[in-house]
């Protein structure tokens, strides 16, 4: 007994007061207690503690407990009922079943992983093949190919580009200063712009050889951008880059920026004489350097976004097209591509839109409307975005003369001009 430490002593005495010791152990403890005063004291304290705990005040019986509990139980049942689509007693069985299914499915997947990998790899290859077939093998073709300097200039200055020589159908892009841009495809002899050639431009503006080289490069770039901005596909599908009118304005700005102030006056006269939709505003600004000009020109449609139009619907989506490889492919099979493009174009021109104008919610509200010979895509860009564009310093939309004669030159007239044009197109 003497060898026990405090903890062992506590444990022994605790069991002694609880009556848990055998008779022999009790005798030993009692003989020890007879000799040890502190142990006796400890036992007394333990007994006193037990009495205190046993006499601890009890709570008053709660007669309303069942009533409250019954309500809580009902609520609990309701909650469970609403959470589980089956009785609660089926939970263990269903859990086991689900676990078994997961284990079996997991085992199958692991065992047949090579087949799965092969399946997904084949799928991926199939997607690639579809892409190559649709995009690279001519299912989706640029509406314009080999846009030369004359056509690029024509487009830059007037926003019009003939689809082909025979059909007299044009692609027209134009902007409304308040609402945004409009892209149109159709026959419109009234508004047909005067033909403009690069030589005519050179004769009028008389650029230096450096400027000529620069403008030449700009027009080449414009041609490439036009090629990659308007695509046509099977089933009367058309994809137009919504920033195409940006390109129009950007190129006029850049051409004007290349020129010296006196040449810019000539350029303004040329624009005015041909009733171009733009006018040069900052005529005294000195010519900019070529590298600064080229920095502003995006090489491809912004975010690869296109407005995709089919006879039934219209959507705004991303198309990732490798235009370089597409061009190479086209150059290798020129005849085939031209024939296919011509067929598509015929169908495109004869297209019939079944639906009234509709809006797309994001990111820009877009409308499309038209009839048998005309359709139009209207892209509404917020005014702030137009104002943010840096080329506005030099080029502003020109107010048409016939409108100027009847009303004051303000933004609302610009809008009216476009509504008039649209109604002409629609009523025809």
């Amino acid at each position: 007994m003497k060898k026990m430490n405090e903890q062992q002593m506590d444990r022994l005495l605790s069991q002694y007061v609880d009556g848990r010791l055998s008779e022999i152990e009790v005798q030993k403890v009692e003989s020890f207690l007879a000799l040890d005063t502190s142990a006796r004291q400890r036992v007394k304290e333990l007994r006193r503690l037990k009495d205190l705990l046993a006499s601890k005040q009890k709570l008053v019986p709660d007669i309303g407990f069942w009533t409250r509990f019954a309500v809580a139980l009902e609520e609990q049942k309701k909650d469970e009922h609403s959470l589980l689509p089956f009785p609660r007693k089926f939970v263990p069985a269903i859990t086991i079943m689900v676990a078994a299914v997961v284990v079996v499915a997991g085992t199958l997947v692991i065992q047949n992983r090579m087949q799965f990998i092969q399946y997904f790899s084949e799928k991926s290859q199939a997607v690639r093949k579809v892409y190559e077939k649709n995009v690279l093998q001519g299912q989706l073709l640029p509406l314009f190919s080999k846009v030369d300097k004359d056509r690029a200039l024509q487009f830059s200055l007037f926003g019009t580009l003939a689809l082909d020589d025979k059909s007299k159908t044009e692609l027209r892009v134009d902007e409304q200063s308040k609402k945004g841009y409009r892209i149109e495809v159709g026959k419109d002899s009234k508004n047909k712009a005067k033909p403009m050639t690069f030589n005519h431009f050179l004769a009028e503006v008389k650029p230096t050889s450096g400027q000529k080289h620069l403008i030449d490069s700009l027009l080449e770039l414009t041609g490439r951008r036009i090629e990659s901005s308007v695509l046509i596909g099977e089933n009367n599908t058309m994809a137009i880059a919504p920033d195409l009118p940006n390109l129009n304005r950007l190129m006029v700005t850049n051409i004007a920026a290349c020129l010296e102030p006196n040449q810019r006056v000539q350029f303004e006269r040329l624009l005015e004489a041909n009733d171009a939709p733009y006018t040069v505003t900052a005529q005294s600004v000195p010519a900019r350097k070529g590298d600064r000009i080229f920095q502003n020109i995006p090489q491809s449609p912004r975010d690869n976004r296109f407005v995709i139009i089919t006879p039934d619907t219209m959507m705004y989506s991303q198309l990732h097209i490798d235009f370089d490889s597409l061009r190479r492919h086209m150059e290798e099979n020129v005849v085939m591509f031209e024939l296919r493009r011509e067929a598509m174009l015929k169908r495109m021109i004869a297209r019939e839109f079944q639906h009234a104008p509709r809006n797309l919610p994001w990111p820009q509200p877009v409308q499309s409307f038209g009839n048998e010979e005309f359709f139009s895509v209207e892209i509404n860009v917020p005014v702030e975005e137009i104002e943010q564009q840096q080329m506005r310093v030099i080029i502003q939309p020109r107010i048409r003369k016939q409108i100027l004669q009847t009303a004051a030159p303000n933004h609302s007239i610009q809008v009216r001009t476009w509504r008039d044009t649209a109604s002409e197109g629609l009523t025809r």
Partner: protein
Amino acid sequence: MALPLPGAEWSSKDKPYQIGVRARSFVPSFTKTNDARSMTNDQILPKPSVDVLRKMSDEALITAFQSGDHDVYRFLVERHQERIRNLLFSIFHDRDFIDDLAQEVFIKAYQALPRFRFEASFYTWLYRIAVNKSRDELRKKKLRRFFSFQTLDEGIEKELNMRLSVPPEDRDTQELVALGLQSLPEKFRTAVVLKDIDGLSYEEIAEVMQCELGTVKSRISRARSMLRKVLKPLLEEVV
């Protein structure tokens, strides 16, 4: 074997005839059925009176419950609610909190009762649920204290010392004992409460706390030793 008379004590050996279960073929034919859907063999026993149900053993009521008569759960709750409330009150010493917790214990028991196997007595089984629930709650409280940077134990000790410093005749023994219990760690507190307040045996405590008998003995002696230390002036009063 005969059916026990109404009001007579039902024991576990009478299980085949317990209330709420479907009648066997030897049930006299005068018993009228009131629910044809629940009939399997012959007829259904008439439902016993509330007085009879109140006198039935826990096991008999559980068997009735497991046979589909969930109304008998009321008598189990009424029989054990005070023990569970007092157990929780001894552990938490918070009158407002324990009623909700007691409800949760009985809801948990209600959900688990269909799986009760009669391997332990109902009240030790119910105590186990209550102890587990209180352990969860103490863990949550501890976590809350940790995130609010509080040290509850220091506060209890301070209050205990303050209350013990007054003259013996002014001391509130009940409050001191409750505070002493609150100062113990959860395992020791539960063990000593079950032993000295609820009067469970060491074996029953081992079953409730799901631990070895030796662990129970050790926890009880440690708890008493700690309590002796913190309540020394109170224990020396009469000794």
